[in-house]
């Protein structure tokens, strides 16, 4: 029997999307009226324990898109998070009791600073920023998501990688008791992902700890997940417990499962189709029943920031 736990948040506590959007324009106008250059607050990131708790001291970012974000409901009920089941609604239904605290992240490999860190200590040195990004799934749908996170480039620099560190590899928690999807070997657990050092230090890459100005819901990868908006969504590894600086290209989960369909790079590319479906267009979630699909953009529209990373790469081979 499925027992669905009621959200322990009163409707009055939830910021409506309209108010939320107004808040942004209010903040923007405040900045302009004050004539103050917003130089970054330098507060240090503090993330409360419970999903939906408000995140404080979040600065806005020039990398955010002006497109309207998807509703909180769309973002939190339509997820690919196979650790909680393979259907889109499974993570919403199965992740309610997941314990995202206490949480330990291990940093190892070719770096000066390594060790195991409690999540709160791990993110404390960094500043929270809101990044409203397009998210393009390899399944040809997309959303706009107002993430809150910390710059991955800052995190990488903080741990002082050695010159031998060419890649950063990530791993998700393995806990079949809490993550029912791991009781079947749909993927070879733990979920693994990786970036080149150049990709990891690109200013677009973030480790996200929240959405809509609130603590990350479990089904979206609490407490911390990767967001790399110019790549297909599956690169955005969730519930990270390990970050390794390595000298060789790390194994990545979907590539291990079907290397002819999912590459290491997985950059959004409308010209290279998935073997079984077209990547030329995408369905924007929330656009409605009768909305046409929209054209997919190269690098998901982030080419000005990332195209230079791939000038020497054959994108047909390195999909």
């Amino acid at each position, binding site marked *: 029997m499925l027992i669905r736990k009621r959200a322990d948040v009163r409707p009055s506590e939830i910021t409506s999307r309209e108010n939320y959007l107004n808040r942004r324009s209010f903040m923007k106008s405040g900045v302009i009226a004050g004539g103050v250059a917003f130089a970054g607050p330098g507060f240090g990131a503090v993330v409360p324990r419970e999903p939906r708790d408000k995140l404080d001291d979040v600065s806005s970012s020039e990398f955010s898109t002006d497109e309207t974000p998807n509703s909180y409901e*769309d973002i939190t009920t339509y997820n690919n998070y*196979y650790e909680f089941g393979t259907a889109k609604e499974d993570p919403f239904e199965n992740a309610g009791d997941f314990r995202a605290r206490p949480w330990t992240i291990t940093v190892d490999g070719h770096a000066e600073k390594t060790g195991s860190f409690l999540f709160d200590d791990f993110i404390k040195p960094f500043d929270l920023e809101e990044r409203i990004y397009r998210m393009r799934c390899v399944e040809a749908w997309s959303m706009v998501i107002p993430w809150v996170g910390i710059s991955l480039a800052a995190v990488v620099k903080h741990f002082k990688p050695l010159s031998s560190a060419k890649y950063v590899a990530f791993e998700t928690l393995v806990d079949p008791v809490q993550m029912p999807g791991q009781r079947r070997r749909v993927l070879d657990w733990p979920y693994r992902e990786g970036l080149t050092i150049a990709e990891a230090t690109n200013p677009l890459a973030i480790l996200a700890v929240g959405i809509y100005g609130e603590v990350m819901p479990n089904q979206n990868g609490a407490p911390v997940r990767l967001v790399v908006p110019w790549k297909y969504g599956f690169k955005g590894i969730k519930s990270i417990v390990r970050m390794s600086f390595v000298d060789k290209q790390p194994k990545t989960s979907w590539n291990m499962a079907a290397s002819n369909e999912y590459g290491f790079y997985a950059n959004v590319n409308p010209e290279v189709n998935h073997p079984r479906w077209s990547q030329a267009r995408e*369905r924007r979630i929330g656009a409605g029943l009768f909305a046409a*699909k929209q054209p997919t953009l190269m690098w998901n529209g982030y080419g000005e920031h990332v195209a230079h990373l791939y000038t020497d790469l054959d994108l047909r081979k390195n999909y």
Partner: protein
Amino acid sequence: MDTLRQIRLIWKPAVFVLCLIPASLVVTDALEITGKLGANPVEEIQDRFGNWGLRFIMITLAVTPLRRISGWNWLLRFRRMFGLFTFFYILMHFLAWLFLDQGLLLAAIAEDLTERPFITIGFTAFLLLIAMAVTSTDGIRRRMGRRWDKLHTSAYVVGVLGVWHYWWQVKLDFAEPLIYAVILALLLGYRLWWRRRRRQRTKRGTSPLAISDSDQAHRAAQTASQDLQRIR
């Protein structure tokens, strides 16, 4: 009221209404009366119609084995309705793909049909279903004779193509298409087993029915029951 009239006046309309429930739920969920279609309604509508199409082809193919095992010959009276509901749900699945998913964009439709094998397979099954649906009336069945039987055994081909179509579009988790594949294998296996057994009996000459096709036997039974009705 005799059994045949009961089937025609009560049971057939009742089963017809039951078979329409999944389609009605798509409409009422779209209007948010009974539920919701979720964040990606286009995908949800296609999936629901496709799934029900697969379920109905399985139900249709299960009629003959169930009848033989249970001896409930009245089951046969629902087979055409189930077959036509298979066609109906796959037609809706096709229309949802054509209008909602592809938005009638001809270039994309042509590309999908020719370059995506799982769509080519699904479309082939749909063409076979059209052929069976338009030849499903009593009159055409009589006129086509044995060719009708041949055409309508492609129900099994539709089953195989349908499961294959589903299997091929799944990303990684094959649990659901596997369930359909197992059911289909059981239904096909039963049919093969039955044939072999009948052939062996023919050789030994033990079964008077063995010389005729099972459908001819069914027709003979039908005529007999109609005669019986007339006498009553």
